[in-house]
């Protein structure tokens, strides 16, 4: 197992290098990051020239890439090209907010999805099953931003009509409120609900399919034939094995979401890592964008690895060598 993990980690290094180099080239070619500063009369051409020289913007792309790689290790991803602030504190701050949202959303989605999936599989073709099948099909077909906007419109309307503030529709906090307060919950509730609905559609659907897979196997029939109670059969024999694929999917999903639910965070102006990325990309802030891409690519690679290890751990028939 250890050799497998080592090999995977070593293998992911060239993947990271190639992918970051490609995106570095893309963003560099997209435009000049100092264009915004150029329109500012307080920056003289001499200052701009000096700045471009300091940030290696006058060098070729491979050379700039090399300097960026050095920055990662010596200067924690370097400074933003527009605000001249270090990037690392911004990334950790926004990632914290994103984590708060996705952990709540994913845990709820997982619990609800698994519960609904089990019940739908047991009562296949019942009204309950059809109702949740419809919901998950809608969840698959719905653009995330549309769902987020609908929720926003709904709660803005509620506030304007009855002057009741149930959930806030944008931002992270009211002034003077902390990270662990009811106020924060009211702010992140709508992003959480959005992600919850989308993830729930996936989890409940997979759980149902996976339960149905197991329920028709021979050993389940054997368990029933032995005279075990239905509850025991479902919980001991079916549920546990049906959970294996869900664990993998949840790990992959979580890794992908760590890059921030870009769309959801943008709609709700939530100070998460995805929203940070979009803002920086709009300004072509090369090093900030690259810092984000590096962190999310690592997150995806790590969670892909976790998913594979989890799979091997839960299903002893799978062996990695």
């Amino acid at each position: 197992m250890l050799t497998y993990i080592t090999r995977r980690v070593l293998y992911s290094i060239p993947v990271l290098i190639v992918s970051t180099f490609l995106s570095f080239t893309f963003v560099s070619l997209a435009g000049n990051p100092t264009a915004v500063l150029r329109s500012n009369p307080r920056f003289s051409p001499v200052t701009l020239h000096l700045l471009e020289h300091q940030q290696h913007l006058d060098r070729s792309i491979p050379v700039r890439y090399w300097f960026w790689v050095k920055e990662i290790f010596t200067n924690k991803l370097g400074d933003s090209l527009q605000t001249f602030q270090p990037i690392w504190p911004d990334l950790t701050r926004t990632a914290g907010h994103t984590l708060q949202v996705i952990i709540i959303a994913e845990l709820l989605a997982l619990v609800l999805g698994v519960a609904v999936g089990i019940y739908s599989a047991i009562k296949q073709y019942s009204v309950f099953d059809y109702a949740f099948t419809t919901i998950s099909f809608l969840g698959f077909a719905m653009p995330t931003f549309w769902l987020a906007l609908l929720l926003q419109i709904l709660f803005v309307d509620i506030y304007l009509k009855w002057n009741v503030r149930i959930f806030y529709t944008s931002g992270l906090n009211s002034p003077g409120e902390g990270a662990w307060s009811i106020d924060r919950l009211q702010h992140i509730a709508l992003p959480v609900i959005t992600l919850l609905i989308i993830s729930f559609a996936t989890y409940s659907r997979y759980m149902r399919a996976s339960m149905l897979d197991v329920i028709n196997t021979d050993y389940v029939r054997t368990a029933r034939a032995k005279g075990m109670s239905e509850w025991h059969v479902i919980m001991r024999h079916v549920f546990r094995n049906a959970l294996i694929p869900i664990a993998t999917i949840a790990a992959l999903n979580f890794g992908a979401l760590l890059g921030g639910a870009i769309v959801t965070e943008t709609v709700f102006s939530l100070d998460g890592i995805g929203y940070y990325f979009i803002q920086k990309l709009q300004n072509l802030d090369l090093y900030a964008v690259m810092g984000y891409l590096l962190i999310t690519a690592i997150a995806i690679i790590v969670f892909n690895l976790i998913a594979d290890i989890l799979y091997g751990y839960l299903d002893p028939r799978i062996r990695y060598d």
Partner: protein
Amino acid sequence: MTEPSVPIGGQIPVEQGASAAPSVAPPGLTDATVEAGLEIKVRSQWDYARRRFLRHRLAMAGLIGLIILFGAGIFANYIAPYSFEQIDLNNILSPPTFAHNHFFGTDEIGRDYFSRVIYGIRTSEEVGVFVAVLSTFIGLVLGAIAGFYGGWIDNLLMRFTDLVLTLPFLAILLTAAALLGEGSQWRVSFILAVLFWTGTARVVRGIFLSLREKEYVEAAKAAGAGDMRIMFRHILPNTLGPVVVSGTLAVATAILIEAALSFLGFGIKPPTPSLGVLVAGGETNPQQWWLTVFPGLTIVLIVLCVNFVGDGLRDALDPTQRRVRA
């Protein structure tokens, strides 16, 4: 998945004992066949697929819905009561009404949203179909070459698909869109197609890998068939089922992702009405719910219909795959 469960060329269903239950026709047989008791009818694999598809109720509903929606998009010039950029300053932000044919209301400069949504469908279907066709074609050719010849092409292809799989998908799309700049739907479609083909390529490669070792391929080789003939005449038809299914579903995914890109401002730009752009227009007027609801609902309907058709095709073309009842 790699091998059709029924040999191509037709299977002969022989149904006996129909007199026991004459009222219930077994699947695949018409009443007349049952009444005759012992009737032999030769059907090709495609006949079976078509019948399975036609009997799939949700798929048929999806197909009809899709014909209506895409038809509206294609004939947008004839159906839309207004042009997509016509300004009607007498009816600014009007809620949905039949009065001036503003079925979906109007926006802040009085443009008719019903017309804009219909033209938006046209843009979205162009994106969806273009991406599906191009990415399927690239995936088919590269997957076939990689699976058939193996070697460095195969290695390169697999490394590239790994690369695409380990990247933050939306982030890379956004970065690529920033590089190519804003613009027409074709540019966006091109970016999507370039990232979409890897799934098809993997599937096709897998099938080619297993089928190239089969005896019938060896027989074709012995008979003197060239590589091209074996690849495209003997092996390729076996990949058609999964490829058609993934191609269909790619239409839905492409439409969804194009909408998200346009919504974030990295896709199609406002003068061209795309459904994502229209939803984004609704964001600036949250009090006018119709500006958000109708374009979004249209996306949901299109994607639902495409998904239903895709499911039906999967059930029809890929009989070895376990059927997930929709």
